[in-house]
């Protein structure tokens, strides 16, 4: 039954409900697949095989009693930045290599109430800082579509695992594109919810005003099902909002009549790969055929400032958030020092990798006396302008469509020594975090057998519209059905 690992959530759910398969069989199939491809893909940091099989058995006994929710018995991998009680949570860092959280993130608690099966934890750029998963302190993940290519990042392990059928679904986190960019590079679906839609409790903090947890799945219906499970207010995250959670599958209808879609020209950037541009043009024409009204002349002129704004704000917040790693309460500790300050400095020198250090330095500088106004405050003002431009655009459009990234997956090693080049690979995704908006990436074509992603951006808390557009497009195309040649 080795094909079971290829099932989507809703396919597996139907088979489980009809008792045609068991969760144990499904979980075994996925574990076999992991054993088969993991040496090539390296998507996982921790695999909790025994636990997974135990949870699958428990799920099967629930199903036998007729107690089944959409995610019951479905095996999932979780990005290693989300706290899992009793399972080490490394954040891809030597700093937390042996950290075992005493609690679960709220999203994990929510998945547990549905009795999903936890397979383990996925690889990522250290503390979610990066766009290629090469910043993992342990090993890089390889793109299943070309093993010499990066899977994107920072949720590269979660996206590669879905592309390689190493899990039925995964969770990622997105601060500047970390769900969408790898989803685009790996031909899978990834959603960054509106800021405040999903609880961040138990998500190890990188940039608190930008971070969100979201699903990475094989198709749009699955994405909606995972959103149904994880969205909602949480008293333990005071930035989560008390708005009611809709049934995200409700609007999944195969036509786009009455929807107005803008195509912001600033996202078709100079230096973008010509095949990406062509693929997007074809995809947008498809949206028009499906009934949407397209405006090719939408404009968000402040887009060009987003990269600078992001690389001031995110490192500033990171420099404060990562101050907690001092080698005292948990994590890596280097105490071979003459005093407490030197011990802290050494702990951080040997516990953090180069990109994390770069961002702590950048953020500390931007927040330091004499530079705060020129960098941090200025960036927060431009953030207001970027948000206002989106507000204006959403008076005219129900959604905006752009490429997810300007290129297909680049080669391992190609950009690791060139921070600015690496940062530019998120140029289409990071404005959305700055404006707190929801956006989804889904498969929209190929160039030289490498996937191309389409990004659909929605109004705040209107995940339903972008899921609807994504669903209609997916129903009308075949890209998401292609499997990598592993």
């Amino acid at each position, binding site marked *: 039954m080795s094909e079971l690992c290829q099932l989507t959530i809703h396919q597996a759910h139907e088979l489980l409900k009809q008792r045609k398969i068991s969760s144990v069989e499904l979980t075994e199939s996925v574990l076999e697949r992991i054993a088969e491809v993991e040496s090539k893909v390296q998507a996982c940091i921790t695999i909790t095989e025994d636990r997974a099989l135990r949870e699958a058995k428990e799920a099967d006994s629930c199903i036998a009693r007729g107690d089944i929710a959409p995610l019951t018995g479905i095996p999932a991998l979780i990005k290693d930045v989300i706290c899992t009680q009793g399972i080490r949570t490394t954040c891809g860092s030597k700093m937390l290599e042996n950290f075992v959280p005493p609690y679960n993130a709220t999203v994990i608690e929510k998945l547990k109430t549905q009795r999903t099966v936890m397979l383990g934890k996925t690889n990522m750029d250290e503390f979610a800082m990066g766009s290629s998963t090469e910043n993992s302190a342990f090993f890089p993940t390889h793109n299943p579509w070309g093993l010499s290519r990066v899977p994107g990042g920072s949720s590269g392990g979660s996206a590669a695992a879905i592309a390689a059928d190493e899990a039925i679904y995964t969770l990622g986190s997105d601060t500047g594109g970390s769900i969408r960019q790898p989803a685009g590079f790996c031909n899978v679906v990834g959603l960054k919810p509106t*800021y*405040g839609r999903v609880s961040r409790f138990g998500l190890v903090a990188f940039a608190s005003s930008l971070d969100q947890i979201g699903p990475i799945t094989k198709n749009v219906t699955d994405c909606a099902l995972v959103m149904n499970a994880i969205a909602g207010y949480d008293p333990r995250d005071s930035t989560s909002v008390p708005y009611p959670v809709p049934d995200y599958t409700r609007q999944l209808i195969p036509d786009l009549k009455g929807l107005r879609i803008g195509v912001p020209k600033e996202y078709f950037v100079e230096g973008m790969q010509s095949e990406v541009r062509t693929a997007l043009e074809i995809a947008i024409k498809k949206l028009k055929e499906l009934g949407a009204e397209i405006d090719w002349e939408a404009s968000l002129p402040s887009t060009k400032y987003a990269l600078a704004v992001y690389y001031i704000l995110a490192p500033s917040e990171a420099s404060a958030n990562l*101050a907690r790693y001092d080698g005292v309460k*948990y994590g890596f500790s280097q105490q071979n020092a003459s005093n407490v300050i030197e011990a802290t400095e050494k702990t951080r020198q040997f516990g953090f990798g180069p990109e994390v250090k770069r961002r702590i*330095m950048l953020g*500390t500088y931007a927040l330091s006396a004499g530079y705060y106004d020129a960098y941090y405050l200025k960036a927060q003002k431009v953030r207001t302008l970027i948000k206002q431009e989106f507000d204006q655009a959403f008076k005219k459009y129900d959604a905006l469509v752009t490429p997810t990234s300007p290129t297909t997956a680049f080669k391992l090693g190609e950009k690791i020594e060139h921070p*600015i080049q690496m940062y530019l690979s998120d140029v289409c995704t990071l404005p959305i975090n700055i404006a707190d908006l929801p956006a989804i990436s889904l498969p929209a074509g190929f160039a030289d057998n490498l996937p191309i992603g389409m990004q659909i951006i929605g109004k705040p808390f209107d995940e339903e519209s972008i899921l609807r557009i994504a669903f209609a497009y997916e129903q009308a195309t075949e890209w998401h059905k292609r499997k990598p040649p592993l």
Partner: protein
Amino acid sequence: MKLSYEQVKHIAWLARLGLSEAEIEKLSLQLSNILENFEILKQIDTTDVPPATHSIPLQNVFREDEVAKSYSQSEILANAPRQEESCFRVQPILE
């Protein structure tokens, strides 16, 4: 904006981040390069633009101060690199 070796050392001190000589040299170049890319923000007029604070019109969030279950001492100390007599052990702070 060019960052000198001394400036990089000072920022590292503020961040309590130990750096090797080679790291300081490299960061001085890389950070200067990144800061150059921030110059673009000078082009945009932000007079009278309020800085962004929170995305959603949330007021202060309050809750009742209620006694609830917390973690045991042993759970909290379980990840401690060094502990002594049920406390986190640190280097002497006062000479």
